[in-house]
């Protein structure tokens, strides 16, 4: 068997395993007993701890995007459209994707490393002998928390990003806070906001699933833990772009663009 065949076989094998993992999430997640206390704890850890990073990057992104767009708009004499352009770019695409990528870098790696080291040190087995279903306690809660928290972080990140854009606009000209946001909101359509919001649930789910999958199935040893953390970030980042591409195609087909 040549190298290509081995790689293809490994890829298909991993895809199958990942599909089973997702299936197990839905089957076990739907059955009582529900780990609500741990879910709330994970929502707090995932959501609150990610907020400063998401907020900071969102602010810089909004500011820089505005400053970069201005010269082109000035050249075509449509500088007045700057808030609308930046607003739509942030809400439709840049906000969700950049926030999801930052989220993947922080959350998928920590999930991969945490669950990987728990596996290596037999903590997952210890949970099982303590009357706990470790898949439910560790995986279902993390994936659900990640799915619920990313959309919230995107909303907050978009808000901060738009504030950064407002400051960016005011560096070279003067626009009131009220006028800036009214101009953006008046130009928003259903297709700008809703598909962009819905796709963040899928991004959050992908980050949670990949981070948990890589950690939960990491091979023994510290090298395995490192590899789990690293591949969780790479794989979830790629998956975010693939999902984004699919969502754009679907919204285009539905005439929402």
């Amino acid at each position, binding site marked *: 068997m040549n190298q290509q065949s081995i790689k293809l076989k490994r890829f298909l094998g991993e895809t199958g395993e990942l599909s089973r993992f997702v299936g197990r999430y839905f089957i076990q997640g739907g059955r009582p007993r529900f780990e609500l206390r741990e879910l709330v704890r994970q929502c707090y850890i995932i959501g609150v701890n990610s907020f400063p990073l998401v907020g900071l990057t969102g602010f810089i992104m909004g500011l820089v995007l505005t400053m970069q767009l201005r010269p082109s708009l000035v050249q075509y004499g449509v500088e007045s459209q700057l808030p609308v352009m930046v607003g739509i770019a942030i809400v439709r695409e840049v906000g969700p994707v950049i926030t999801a990528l930052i989220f993947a870098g922080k959350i998928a790696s920590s999930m991969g490393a945490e669950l990987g*080291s728990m596996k290596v040190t037999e*903590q997952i*087995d*210890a949970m099982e002998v*303590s*009357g*706990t279903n470790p898949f439910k306690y560790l995986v279902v809660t993390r994936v659900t928390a990640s799915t619920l928290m990313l959309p919230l972080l995107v909303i907050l990140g978009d808000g901060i990003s738009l504030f950064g854009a407002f400051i960016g606009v005011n560096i070279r000209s003067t626009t009131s806070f009220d006028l800036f946001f009214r101009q953006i909101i008046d130009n928003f359509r259903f297709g700008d906001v809703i598909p962009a919001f819905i796709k963040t649930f899928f991004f959050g789910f992908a980050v949670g699933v990949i981070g948990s999958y890589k950690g939960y199935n990491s091979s023994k040893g510290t090298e395995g833990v490192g590899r789990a953390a690293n591949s969780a970030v790479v794989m979830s980042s790629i998956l975010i772009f693939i999902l984004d591409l699919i969502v754009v195609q679907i919204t285009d087909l539905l005439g929402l663009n």
Partner: protein
Amino acid sequence: MPHNQTYDIMTQKPPPSREAVITIEHLCKRFGSNIVLDDFNLTVGKEENIVILGKSGVGKSVLIKCIIGLLRPDSGTILVFGKNIPDMDHDELDRIRAKVGFLFQSNALYDSMTVRANLEFPLRRHWIEMSQQEMDSLVMEVLDNVGLAHTVDMMPEELSGGMRKRIALARTLILKPEIILYDEPTTGLDPVTGREISALIVDIQKKYHSASIIISHDMHCVKKTSDRVAILINGKCYAEGKYDALQKSPDPQIRQFFE
């Protein structure tokens, strides 16, 4: 000597007065083409400490993980309190696990939790009806039993290797198990701490009247803790008997462990 028969050495079965709490019959477990356990048989009596002796990688840990239901055997029966582990569903397994403690080789303390939270975890997860005050006093009682009451609010990373082992043992004891499975309890510890842990295992058996299976290579621990020793070779229970009797055996396969 044929390897498919248990070596016939004196007092190999639990004394008749001891009711069997674990009975393993014809247990087989393989990983791919690697046969780990092959027609393994063993009986553990009530309040009996039995040590499983064998070279590294022969399947000693696999055996106790099959007993607690962490691994599923390919064939054979594992009767714990008369119920066959491989036939049990999750709920039945959880009920049995509340009576069977497991001390992991790596201690498996939850490193994101304090010592107190580590000890309370099995109580909360097994839905044991208990007020917070009762839980606190039970936590302090088991910590006292292992001599580490002052560590109750510390994190596992702040403890030495020997202390972690004791805390792991305290967590195992908190449900007052009738059977305790020890996976290499003295591995990785210095000889002095290893001896302390061996003495603690004996004290625990006296205090809790528990039966134990102890996996160990440490001959001091084996001698100190065992009522009976079973030797695992080629996936089978090759020989079993009292420590002194096995030590005097002329069989080179047995003697290699005692030299």
